[in-house]
């Protein structure tokens, strides 16, 4: 396998709605920024990988073909990836394979998502219809008719974890919400910058027990892109390449009844383990400078501390209590604001997280910069109770 570098990055703002852009126009904006950042012309790209989650959101099946056309990349090979919330991370993994295998030298990995074009006319809001579109990804025969949502699936896991280990508590989850909303105040692309108190979070309305309003990420529209290149190309065109030194992936049984338990996300643990092995990391808290974890819900961020081996199983809540994951802590988590603060533009999310870690490794993260950041982790998960998991270790 060849070494793979990230030589260009770009992202649109993450917003509740981009009323003035279609999905392919958003994709264009992110791609243009990434090409400019890499200092290359689009024709230098050999292939593309598109992370686009929900066809209903785009109001288009096979939306990848229309993105490819709009970006002017006709006749170059491309593939679309759709792995639920982990779509962005999964797209990065395929892009990595394109270059590491020697098949291509330069690959565009781009994630994009609209979602708020769906609409419930009666309630005059998008969200219930967004959730309805998502529910088509639940098993149509047995799960969809039960009215389960993405949030309730993850809530079931968090409740099971709490029943077994006594955490995450509501206060611990609220602290994660406060942290991520606050971190977002320093991120110019973030959707939900907010200065909240723990009490604000505890007082917010219940969505799905134990998640209150501020424990959830919001649905977001946006596009993010990175340009991957082989070592030879990276060294000739880039003076600040970021290397993908670790990559791990695992996909669990989508029907949770086929798993040994639901209080831990085994696919996440395996993805992290493989990524660390590849990157030679034995003590993540000591060796990583920052981590962007998939915090679709506060409770799952806490579970992710365990799944990424920042602590032993069952002790995730400690890391928010003792400050380890705060901006000034030993291993800051979600300096971007994460999904809760920055937003969850599903197909783009894993790529936005990668963009964020690159910003820190390149020393360009402004007010939220982790000083002297050399190594960072991206965790991208999704699907029913964390079916898909991808972890990447990035280094400068």
């Amino acid at each position, binding site marked *: 396998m060849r070494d793979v570098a990230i030589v260009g990055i770009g992202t649109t703002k993450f917003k509740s709605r981009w*009323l*003035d852009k279609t999905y392919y126009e958003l994709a264009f904006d992110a791609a243009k920024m990434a090409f400019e950042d890499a200092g290359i012309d689009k024709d230098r790209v050999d292939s593309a990988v598109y992370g686009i989650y929900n066809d*209903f959101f785009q*109001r288009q099946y096979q939306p990848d073909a229309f993105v490819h056309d709009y970006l002017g990349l006709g006749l170059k090979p491309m593939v679309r990836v759709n792995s639920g919330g982990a779509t962005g991370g999964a797209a990065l993994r395929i892009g990595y394979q394109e270059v590491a295998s020697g098949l291509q030298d330069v690959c565009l990995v781009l994630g994009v998502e609209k979602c708020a074009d769906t609409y*419930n*006319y*009666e*309630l*005059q809001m998008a969200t*219930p*219809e967004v*959730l*309805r579109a*998502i*529910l088509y990804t639940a*098993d149509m*025969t*047995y*799960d969809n*008719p*039960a*009215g*389960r*949502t993405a*949030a*309730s699936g993850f*809530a*079931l*896991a968090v*409740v*099971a974890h709490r*029943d077994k280990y006594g955490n995450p508590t509501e206060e611990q989850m609220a602290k994660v919400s406060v942290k991520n909303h606050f971190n977002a105040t320093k991120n110019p692309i973030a959707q939900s910058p907010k200065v909240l108190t723990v009490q604000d979070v505890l007082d917010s*309305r*219940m*969505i*799905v*027990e*134990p998640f209150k309003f501020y424990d959830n990420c919001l649905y977001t529209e946006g596009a993010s892109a990175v340009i991957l290149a082989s070592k030879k190309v990276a060294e000739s065109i880039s003076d600040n390449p970021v290397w993908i030194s670790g990559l791990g992936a695992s996909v669990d049984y989508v*029907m*949770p*009844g*086929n798993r040994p338990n*639901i209080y831990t996300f085994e696919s996440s643990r395996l993805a992290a383990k493989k990524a660390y092995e590849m990157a030679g990391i034995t003590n993540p808290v000591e060796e990583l400078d920052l981590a962007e974890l998939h915090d679709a819900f506060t409770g799952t961020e806490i579970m992710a501390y365990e799944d990424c081996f920042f602590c032993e199983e069952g002790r995730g809540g400690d890391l928010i209590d003792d400050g380890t994951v705060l901006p000034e802590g030993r291993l800051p988590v979600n300096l971007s604001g994460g999904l809760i603060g920055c937003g969850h533009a599903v197909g783009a999310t894993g790529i936005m997280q990668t963009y964020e870690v690159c910003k820190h490794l390149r020393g360009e993260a402004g007010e939220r910069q982790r000083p002297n950041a050399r190594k960072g982790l991206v965790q991208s998960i999704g699907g029913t109770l964390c079916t898909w998991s991808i972890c990447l270790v990035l280094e400068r």
Partner: protein
Amino acid sequence: MNSAEREAWYRYQHEKYGIPVEHLRREFEEELSGKNSMDAPLEIPDKMEVVFKYSYGGQSRFFRELRENKALYGAECPECGKVFCPPRSHCHTCYQPTQWKKLVGTGTIEACTVQHYTTSSFIKKVPFVCAYVKLDGTDSLLMTNMEVDDVAKVKVGTKVKAVYRELRLGAITDVYFKPLD
């Protein structure tokens, strides 16, 4: 558009998409009466829809038993003995065809949460309990939304029993679960 043109537009969109005219008027009157600039983003109603005559394939008997006989069946692997509900035609471990096994219709809540917010299709039912139930005699979990007067009555470990609806359509919702008391 003049007022008559607008009304024709509302009628057409209502018939095509089933959206009440007053909702359409609420959302589009400003646009249709020319208040927005030519370059402002233009929104339109739309809907994605596909109609099926779906086959349950190897799981057909499960749904026919449910509809005709008010009975729940699991699928048992003859090799490892695991019983699946939701049923499956083959064991994913042994790759052997499974055999039907009648279940008693009681079970235990393995995980549950209360939904206070949900999709357009279910939002009028909140709050409701969303749970994984392990049916007695099976080794897997079935997703269900419980019909209970008091959502606090349902907890992990709660024993439940199957209740069959009067009108059964041949869908998993032909059965729901109630605490066994």
